[in-house]
Every structure is written in C-alpha cells, then in structure tokens.
C-alpha cells in the first residue's frame, strides 16, 4: 500500500493533536471527520488567535487613534498581506476581505457585471459549478439580458474543451471552479484563461475547493479573479477572500455602500475609497481575518505541496478500497490525476441519507445530499450522493473504517 509514504510527509500523529476537535468520540467511536469539503476543522493556534484578539486588543479597525485600535488594524492588515503572499498576488491591495466564496462571486457579478454586461453578452460557466458560482450569474443574466453558456463534462467528470473556442464567442466572463466539490475534478484553469483572454473575456476562478488543498498562484494561472473561503482552509467562518487584478478592481464601482468604503460623503453624493476599502463597507470580520492569517501561516509551515501530496495518496488509497465495495459507484475521475480528495458516490439500493446515518453511527462524518450542485446531479440523473472528503489530518485508517461501514450499510439494507 502506498498510503504509508503519505504519513512520512509529516508527522500525522503530532499534526492531529493540533486539532482539539479530532480528539473525541461520536457514538462511542473515535470521530473520523470526512467532511472537510463542507468545512474544515481548526487547529488550536487558529482558535487561540481568535480568543487572543477578543481578550487583548479587541477594537475597530481603521478608526481609533489609540493603541488597541492601532494594534487591531495592524494585525488585520498584516493578515491581508499573508493572504496576498499565499496566493502570490502582486499587491495586498488586490485582497478584498468578504464573508465567503459566495459573497466574493456576488461582488464581482454585481459590481463588474452590472457595469459591463449588456443584453446579448455571454457568460461561460460549466455544469459542475456549485450553486454559489451559478446563481450570481443567473441573477446577473436576468438583470442585464446576458446569456449563460455551459461547458459540458465527459464520462469521467472532466470538462470537455473541444468546443471551447466556439463557446467563447461573445463571452465577456468565464466563471469556473478550479476543483469540483462533488467530482473532485481539477480543471485546467490556466489553459482556459489563456484561451478566454484571447477573445477578451475575463476569468473568475472559484477556489473554494482548491486554495485549501493545493498551491495556487494567481499570476502563474493568469486569471483575473479568485474567490475562496477561510473556513475550508483551517480558518474561521465568516471570512473569505476576493482576489482581483488591480487594474480591474480599480475600475469597478462599489458593491455595498456604508462606512469605510468612502472618501468624501455629501448628502446627495459621495466619492469612494481606493481598493480594497472600496469593497469593504462596514466593520469587517476582524478577528476572523486575523485568524485566517494564522491559518495561512499554519498551512504554509506544513507546505501546500506536502498537503496536496498527502491528500493525493489518501485519495488513491480511497479509490482503490472503495472499488472493493459491491454496488458502489464513484463519480468523477477514476484516478488521482488532476483530481482532488472529494469522493462522491452512490451505493445500490441505499439512499445517501441512509448511508450517512449508518456512517454516523460508526463515528464517521460525511455529507449526503446534492452538495449545492443540483444541475450536476440532474446530469447524472441522481437526486443525491454521499461524499467523503479528505484534508491534511485524515489517515488511511479512516478510509478503512469508511469501507467497513459501507459494507455494513449494504448488509443492513441489502
């Protein structure tokens, strides 16, 4: 078995001890958390970081001329810098703090979209998109009269790019996930960006499932926007990131109006702040942003390459072991090539909800449902799947427990 090599990448036992939540029993069994694609667990230092802010220097940012506020502002802006370096942004002004991936994409659809799209313009998506990278564009299309176009997928759940150039005709923006939250497919966004730019279209990448799991370099990818969430990458909920190319962000009108996003305010009109403040109306999630910076430090100290390699080994082992389960069908690529560690499957005669309930009884946490990707499930003509997803703290033994519990489910409902 190859999974032992993954363990050598870092000391997994020590690493797991960093996550207090993993040290607990569920239904009398050690918790096996296989739902990190929905939300990851948090290491102690991220939890401590939140508490430290509230205990020691809680104050609003960019406002007070007193020490606590200066300290909070410094930590908040330092977190912005950490995030910028993490994805190799050319400037930390390109980092806009938002609540999550969903808000980041809505920001672009509202701000850039409303200002730039006209009736008849096209927006290119794929059928594997999460609802958060579909609904904002549907709503934009309804407001502007723009048309939606979708890249299809093949039998293995990979994007079919044979007709990409034809599909790009009249397209103003391509919005695509870097890694499917259902299929695990990793999409060739650099190639798509190159071909999209050739026709003058912008490219937004939904990085919710990629940024936590692999090295992502926005300049190397050659994209225009990247959206991702803190809570899927060991950070807190309520904080997410929109990265945008400076020249594009600078041309965009504000998204929400309010405090912080202004220069001079009059009763009838106002001027707006430079980026990124222009897009950060109101008091931000200060503790959460600072703790996201801590999560970034944590991930970088381990190394995104090593995290990716570890998950890939685990994924390979899982695909192999799951193939032993009779009546089980995995959706998405059959190998670890250009594939991340989200594994969705169906089990003959056992509904995903029932699978998840049997697994829960064994202390195994997975997600069952449509994973906010109803059109993708409609494509496969299934109402739901069960999804196991891996992160840096998962171990081969948890895959073994998953497989054993699936055999149990087959026996119970068979």
């Amino acid at each position: 078995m190859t999974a032992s090599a993954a363990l050598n990448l870092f000391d997994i036992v020590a690493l797991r001890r960093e996550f207090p939540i993993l040290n607990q029993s569920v239904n009398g069994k050690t918790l096996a958390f296989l739902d990190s694609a929905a939300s990851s667990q948090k290491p102690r230092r991220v939890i401590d970081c939140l508490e430290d802010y509230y205990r020691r220097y809680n104050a609003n940012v960019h406002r007070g001329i007193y020490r606590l506020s200066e300290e909070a502002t410094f930590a908040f802006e330092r977190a912005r810098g950490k995030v910028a370096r993490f994805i190799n942004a050319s400037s930390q002004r390109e980092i806009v703090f938002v609540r999550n991936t969903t808000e980041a994409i809505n920001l672009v659809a509202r701000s850039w979209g409303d200002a730039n799209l006209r009736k008849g313009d096209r927006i290119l998506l794929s059928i594997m998109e999460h609802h958060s990278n579909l609904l904002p564009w549907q709503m934009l299309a309804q407001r502007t009269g723009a048309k939606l176009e979708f890249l299809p997928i093949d039998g293995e759940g990979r994007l079919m790019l044979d007709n990409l150039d034809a599909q790009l005709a009249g397209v103003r923006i391509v919005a695509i996930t870097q890694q499917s939250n259902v299929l695990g497919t990793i999409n060739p966004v650099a190639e798509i960006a190159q071909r999209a730019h050739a026709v003058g279209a912008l490219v937004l990448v939904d990085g919710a499932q990629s940024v936590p799991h692999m090295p992502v370099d926005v300049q190397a990818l050659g994209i225009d926007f990247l959206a991702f969430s803190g809570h899927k990458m060991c950070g807190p909920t309520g904080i997410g990131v929109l990265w945008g190319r400076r020249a594009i962000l600078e041309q965009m009108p504000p998204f929400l109006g309010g405090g912080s996003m202004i220069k001079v305010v009059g009763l009838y009109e106002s001027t707006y702040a430079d980026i990124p403040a222009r897009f950060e109306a109101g008091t931000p999630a200060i503790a959460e942003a600072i703790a996201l910076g801590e999560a970034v430090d944590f991930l970088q100290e381990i190394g995104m390459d090593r995290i990716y390699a570890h998950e890939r080994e685990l994924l390979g082992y899982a695909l192999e072991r799951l193939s032993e389960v009779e009546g089980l069908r995995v959706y998405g690529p059959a190998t670890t090539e250009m594939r991340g560690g989200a594994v969705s499957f169906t089990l003959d005669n056992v509904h995903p909800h029932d699978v998840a309930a049997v697994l829960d009884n064994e202390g195994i946490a997975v997600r069952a449902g449509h994973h906010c990707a109803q059109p993708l499930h409609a494509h496969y003509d299934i109402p739901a799947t069960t999804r196991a997803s891996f992160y840096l703290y998962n171990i081969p033994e948890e895959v073994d427990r998953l497989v054993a519990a699936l055999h149990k489910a087959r026996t119970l409902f068979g």
Partner: protein
Amino acid sequence: MDDLYRELILEHYKHPRRRGRLERPDVSAEEHNPLCGDRVRIDLQIENGVITDARFDGRGCAISQASASMLTDEIIGMPVEQAKQFSKEQLLALIGIPLNHNPVRIKCALLPLKTLKAGLYGVGHAPDDDEL
C-alpha cells in the same frame, strides 16, 4: 442506529405496501424535500368523505419511503376530516421514531404527511413542518 432503522422501517422500505399510482385518483399531490432531492407522490381515492384507497410513489431514503408506506396503509378507511387532523406526533408514533431525533431525519419522515395534507387541503397549501 437501532432506534432509527428498526425492523419495521426496514421491512416497509424493502417491501413497501402501497407503492404505485391509482388510475383515477380523486386527489394527487407531490412534494419535494429541497435539502436532499427526495420526492413523494400520494394518490387518494375518496368516496363519501372517506379515503377508500391510497398509493404512494417517489424516491428517497428509507425513512421517507417507509413513512409513506405506513402512512398510506394507515389512512385507508379514514374520513377525510380525520386525515386532515393527522398530526406529526401521530405519524412519528406510527413509524416509531422519537420526536427528539435528528431534525434532518424528522424532515424525511414528515415528507409523506406534508404531501398528504397538501393533497387534502388543495394545491399550494403544503404546510410547513411546524404546522403539521
């Protein structure tokens, strides 16, 4: 596990009593659970204010399908006015799931009752779970 997947539920899931459609239903309703994509359709035959036959169709988890099987079995011979009053507590007692169970699974169990009431009260009147 035992309290959720008791023999009765597994039995009704594997061998549903009244799965299918009625040829000329007097009432027919379908409801969905948007959380998981489950769906249940219930057809009723009504004579002189009494439910004389019932069938269910749909797809979903063991809980929702077993619940539909047991509910359709239960309401045959029941006056419509009595079926309209059939409560959430009565349904959960019928299928043997404790009220304090995981709310997501309670939602699965209640889908057939919601469908029944939507049918009896008329289109567009599907009650919320709290109103069942």
